[in-house]
């Protein structure tokens, strides 16, 4: 414990911490063997518990965490992508419905026009027009 503290920056807080650690170390010598055994057992339990939680995190939670981290890092890209997608879908839908409108109206007014529908696709009429325009 002392070794770790000696490697940290030498600030007033660290000096205080060192003093506390020194005091605790001095008192450690006075702890009886039963208490030392309890502390050692508690330490082992704590280490085992920490190891277990770490393994669970790797199996399941870390995937979600990685996904969350990715979204966080790309938090400006995601709204832009969604906005672009929404605009694309709206554009496609608009074209779809607009085309339907034009064709539907065309059919109704085509049927009501001066010329009957067959005049527009009669091969013979096309030939008749071509020959009459040459005369």
């Amino acid at each position, binding site marked *: 414990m002392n070794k770790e503290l000696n490697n940290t920056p030498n600030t007033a807080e660290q000096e205080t911490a060192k003093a506390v650690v020194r005091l605790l170390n001095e008192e450690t010598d006075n702890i009886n063997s039963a208490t030392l055994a309890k502390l050692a057992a508690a330490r082992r339990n704590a280490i085992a518990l920490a190891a277990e939680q770490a393994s669970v995190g790797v199996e399941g939670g870390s995937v979600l965490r990685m996904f969350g981290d990715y979204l966080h890092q790309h*938090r400006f890209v*995601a*709204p832009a992508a*969604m*906005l672009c*997608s*929404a605009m694309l*879908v*709206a554009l496609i*839908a608009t074209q779809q*419905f607009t085309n*339907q409108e034009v*064709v*539907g*109206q*065309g*059919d*109704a*007014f*085509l*049927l*009501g*026009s*001066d*010329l*009957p*529908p*067959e*005049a*527009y*696709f*009669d*091969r*013979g*009429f*096309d*030939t*008749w*027009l071509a*020959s*009459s325009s040459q005369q």
Partner: protein
Amino acid sequence: MARVFVAAIILAVGLVCGFARAEDAASLSWSQLSEEQKKVLSPLAQEWDTLRPWQREKMQDIARDYPKMSAKQQERVQERLSKWSRMTPFERENARKKYQQFQAMPADKREELRKKWRDYQSLPEAKREQLRQEHPELYGTDDVDN
């Protein structure tokens, strides 16, 4: 981000509902049509339930536009509707294209074309059939699904 997400969801739901309604409209049987639609589409009453969904949808579009038309146009629609429904998709598509061209013509050209159509109609059927055979382009393709 939350607002964009909600907007995207609303848009998607709206589109799905819109397409679903279009599908529903296309699959309506004769008995499910409104009285107004039945009145306009009465020439098709006997054959309505044999029409394909996309044909029904087109006919409902015609019924939708019918009230916007003059009495003379409405009369023509009634006369021609049955024959229109029996035309092939290719013929209908071709008629649409030619109709757009006809509408873009000046008034005098349109009148001239109407006169020529009357002249053509006055020809004997044998002569008209001969003219059809002389047409250089290929017709009758039935793969345009409109």
